[in-house]
């Protein structure tokens, strides 16, 4: 039933918004935002579900991804002026790959050095990841400087195209496509491969997975790195959307990501997807209908969802 929430909220806003073209624009914007949030949040929920680790420094992977992409893109401005999709892609694809790789490496460092020594101790985990946040945010400034870096968007995906009477931004469509692709890939990995099977079982009952003979701790590093890489991807997409990079990027979206993860149910990728779309749609609809409410809208959404389903929309039955 919770699955129906997304179309329900979307359709319910139509009469409120009034005009169909505006509604289309807002919906696409909401879906795009939701997809980017999903990319940023999915790693966090999986890591938490599997390893019982909440990384308050998750925002750093987002920021590092964004900065990595920015570094590549600013060096490839020639390719981006060429007005051809292929040329733009030769700039964007390496940028995105750089973002994922950089964030992934940082994730590996985090897991190995900061988090592994404090497994099981939630208090220390929270403190250590906060410490990581402080240090690495500063290190970003050391490497990339303290200023906001503006990020030009590649030529072929700027601007909008017109569908009927609605203006639809090209970049948002790209974001939706990428987001769907990521979700599909994750779904396939989790549900059609043996590793996915292990992860899903491990989220529920890691002890039993070990009793079946699997060294689940080896999986942890892999999942953590994948999660941070995904966050880096989300950060790169988000940066290109905002057309700028700054070190606080991760912290700015962190509360929203936590809300999405809580709404979706800790450990559930599907729940995270739905939660992200809901948050994205709601932010855009309220931004149009009741701007003062917009910033607090996702927190209110979280309260409402928790009142209905205290463990989130798709909770994993923990043993």
């Amino acid at each position, binding site marked *: 039933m919770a699955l129906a929430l997304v179309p329900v909220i979307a359709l319910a806003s139509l009469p409120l918004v009034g005009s169909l073209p505006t509604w289309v624009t807002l919906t696409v914007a909401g879906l795009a935002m939701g997809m980017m949030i999903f990319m940023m949040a999915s790693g966090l929920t999986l890591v938490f579900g599997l390893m019982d680790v909440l990384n308050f420094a998750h925002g750093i992977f987002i920021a590092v991804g964004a900065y990595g992409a920015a570094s590549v893109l600013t060096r490839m401005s020639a390719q981006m002026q060429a007005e051809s999709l292929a040329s733009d892609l030769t700039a964007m694809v390496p940028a995105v790959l750089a973002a994922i790789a950089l964030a992934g490496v940082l994730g590996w460092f985090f897991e190995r050095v900061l988090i592994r020594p404090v497994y099981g101790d939630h208090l220390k985990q929270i403190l250590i990841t906060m410490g990581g946040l402080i240090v690495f945010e500063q290190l970003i400034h050391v490497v990339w400087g303290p200023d906001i870096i503006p990020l030009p968007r590649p030529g072929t995906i700027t601007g909008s195209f017109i569908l009927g009477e609605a203006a639809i931004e090209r970049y948002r469509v790209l974001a939706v496509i990428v987001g769907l692709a990521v979700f599909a890939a994750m779904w396939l990995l989790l549900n059609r491969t043996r590793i996915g*099977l*292990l992860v*899903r*079982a491990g*989220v*529920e*009952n890691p*002890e*039993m*997975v*070990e*009793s*079946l*003979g*699997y*060294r*689940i701790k080896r999986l942890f590093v892999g999942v953590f790195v994948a999660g941070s890489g995904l966050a880096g991807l989300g950060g790169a997409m988000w940066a290109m959307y905002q057309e700028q990079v700054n070190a606080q990027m991760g912290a700015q979206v962190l509360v929203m990501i936590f809300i999405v993860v809580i709404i979706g149910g800790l450990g559930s990728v599907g729940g995270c997807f739905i939660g992200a779309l809901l948050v994205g749609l709601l932010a855009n609809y309220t931004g149009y209908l009741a701007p003062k409410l917009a910033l607090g809208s996702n927190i209110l959404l979280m309260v409402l969802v928790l009142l209905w389903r205290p463990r989130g929309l798709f909770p*994993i*039955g923990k*043993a």
Partner: protein
Amino acid sequence: MPEPMLSLAGVNTHIAQYHILHGVDLEVPRGSLTMLLGRNGAGKTTCLRTIMGLWRASAGSLRIDGQDTTRVPTPEVAQLGVAYVPENMGIFAGLTVRENVLLAARAGEPDAKRLEWIFGLFPAMQKFWSSVAGNLSGGQKQMLAVARAIVEPRKLLLVDEPTKGLAPAIIANMVEAFRELKRTDTTLLVVEQNFNFARSLGDRVAVMDSGRIVHTGRMDALAADAGLQTKLLGLSLDTHQ
């Protein structure tokens, strides 16, 4: 005499501040089915978990099939050929029955003949093969838990209260299944509260009290001695159902 499949010598286990096992000495001969009995809180589950490596013994030694497993982590204990069916069954509610069994088959796909044999033991499993495990009834979950433990041949099976909360018909199914299991090469250590179940299947019996083994011996000897049963278990066999 061949070395026992499982032997504990002076095993102590502490959980946080609580000292649960106070020097457990136990030997489980190869190929036998040993029942581990005792009151609630005697330490039976702790015993199984310590053998499995889920909790670390603070003193004493553990040997499985001739190997010292005192400090060995759980996955490696399992890979030695040990299977564990915990009290809460440990099935993955979000996965289907098929996926649960698939996961337990470390070699990849379960052997077709082996699966057939398991379906023979638990005919109902074929019906809910594609169902999500969380939707099964208690009895079906228990069947799945045991099936998982035997999807590949194992040397040692540790089972914690297989009949807990089950209807008599399902218990009868369990008894048959365990009788079949006894015919294979597997050694079994089963914790039970149901003395009838224990008596009908056990070759040997060990009784625990306050973290120690207070009696070991043959099952038929204990079953014949009502006075000893009352002394060890607090109840006679008729009431201890």
